């Protein structure tokens, strides 16, 4: 099996809707959007849902993908022992400190307690998924090469330390940072990591709309196939060069064109008002 096949196989595992990633309790503001009457003006419910997915996805892509990209890059450098100066191998410590700084920046940029809460829950779930679901037990190690075992040991050390830091409340463990770290640890390319991240965001919105009884399961599938695909592609293309600015030198980083930003103030208000709903079935 070559590298590309391995990557495809891991993508299949990650895209499984049964993975315990916590996304099934998140509606990212959709429940609040419906409750506040914003779907009523649309000609039909599926148009309203597609509009929501589109605006939510655009804002989420612009605000989170810079963090996914930078966290992925930091962990890839660690995996490849790159970025070493004066023959000092960058060890888990400096990579962890980079991840913590990205996490801190994300926390200061997501100024909505509901979105922060959901992001932290899902972030930790990603790391748990790695250490419990993707790591290799001794009995399974006979199936892999020594090189793969070595890589895995290094990654497990990093991810375990990150989890520990989160548990000690030394860092937050936001989803885009944890996702970037997880996918890099699994040696998924940055392009595919960004793509899958947005796809999963969109898919969880559609699952939420089914659970809210707004769309049927077949209708949601149609939207996923026909609308979500071009939307995800457009956002991935638009955001491929975005960075947080943290890993780049400040002189050549233009915050306005390349930095993370929120692009949908209405979505921000509705997501923030989630907890005010008299009755609700989601956590965000």
């Amino acid at each position: 099996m070559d590298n590309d096949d391995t990557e495809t196989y891991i993508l299949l595992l990650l895209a499984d809707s049964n993975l315990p990633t916590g996304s099934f309790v998140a509606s990212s503001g959709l429940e609040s959007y419906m409750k506040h009457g914003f779907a009523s003006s649309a000609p039909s419910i599926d148009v309203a849902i597609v509009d929501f997915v589109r605006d939510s996805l655009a804002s989420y892509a612009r605000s989170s993908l810079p963090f996914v990209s930078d966290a992925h890059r930091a962990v890839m450098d660690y995996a490849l022992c790159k970025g070493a100066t004066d023959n000092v191998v960058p060890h888990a410590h400096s990579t962890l400190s980079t991840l913590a700084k990205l996490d801190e920046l994300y926390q200061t940029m997501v100024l909505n307690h509901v979105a922060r809460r959901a992001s932290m829950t899902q972030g930790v779930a990603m790391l748990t998924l790695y250490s419990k679901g993707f790591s290799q037990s001794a009995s399974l190690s006979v199936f892999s090469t020594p090189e793969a075992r070595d890589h895995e040991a290094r990654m497990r050390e990093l991810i375990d330390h990150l989890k520990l830091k989160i548990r000690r409340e030394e860092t937050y463990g936001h989803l885009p940072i944890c996702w970037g770290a997880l996918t890099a640890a699994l040696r998924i390319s940055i392009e595919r990591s960004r793509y899958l991240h947005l796809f999963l965001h969109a898919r969880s919105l559609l699952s939420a709309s089914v659970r809210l009884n707004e769309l049927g399961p077949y209708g949601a599938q149609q939207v996923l196939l026909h609308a979500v695909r071009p939307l995800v592609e457009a956002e991935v293309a638009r955001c491929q060069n975005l960075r947080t600015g943290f890993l780049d030198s400040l002189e050549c980083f233009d915050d306005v064109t390349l930095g993370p930003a929120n692009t949908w103030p209405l979505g921000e208000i509705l997501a923030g008002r989630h907890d005010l709903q008299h009755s609700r079935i989601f956590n965000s």
Partner: protein
Amino acid sequence: MQPGGGCITLSLHGARAVFSELSSMYPLKLLSPYVHDRTAIVYLLTYGGGLVGGDEVNLVVNIQPGAQLVILSQGSTKVFKSRPGRRLASVKPFALHFKADANHQSTPIPSTRQNINFHVAQNSTLFLLPEPVTCFRDASYNQYQRFYIEEGGSAVILDWITSGRMSMGEEWAFSHYHSVNEIFHDGKRMAKDVMLLDNEGQGDTLPERTLRQKLLPYSCYAMLVLYGPQLQSVAAEITGRYDQISVFKTRIPDPVLWSLSPMDRARQGLIIRVAGIETEAVKFWLKQTLSGLEEIVGKDVFRRAFT
């Protein structure tokens, strides 16, 4: 000092606020019609009542220990694409025109920029309560505000935008708006709010979705920050009001909608966002919600800020 540059330093002499510095250069203009006890007002004005593409405002504001500075503007900050009389029909010839200018090689459409750095010392308070920004059709606006707050300093920060010149049929018809508000407490970043609104194309394959479609039915969006010890009672009152809200399923969106979140784990600050179908309704909401400020700045100042 460069064109558009400015500096405000407010100090406290005894129990009285005094401007140790208040200077600006065209097109920026600063006016202070009011100083009373430890509180002063400065109006941020621009010649001609607006900013055009290529204009750059760079202002530094220092509030020294114990002083209170209220910053207002007269009418909304209007952002035009270009100077009146030189308006061009489409973007393209304008871009070519600007390529000829050596300073604007990399930016085809010249943006308007406003950068303000605020230094808020201990026991001092900033009240930044301007009128909203109004970007005209095709205008491009970038605003960057940094707030360096020392331990014990406080700030009220209002940053808001309207959909444009409704009387001219313009509704979210500008080309680009980018606004950053970055708040530091003793050098540590507490919040970095970045709002990007633009009408850029989304490729040929997707059906069009304009900024207007994304932001309707609202025509005014505001972001309000309350930070620091001076504002704790105002913040507590607003939080109390917010926690009383209970949302039931409705078919028609509220004319004014707002959300509130604590800024940090220590709850030293609040972030409030407001949307309104009418700008006037948002203004009225702000006046009502911030009525607790009257006690801090006095009746007179409060009236000037919310007329």
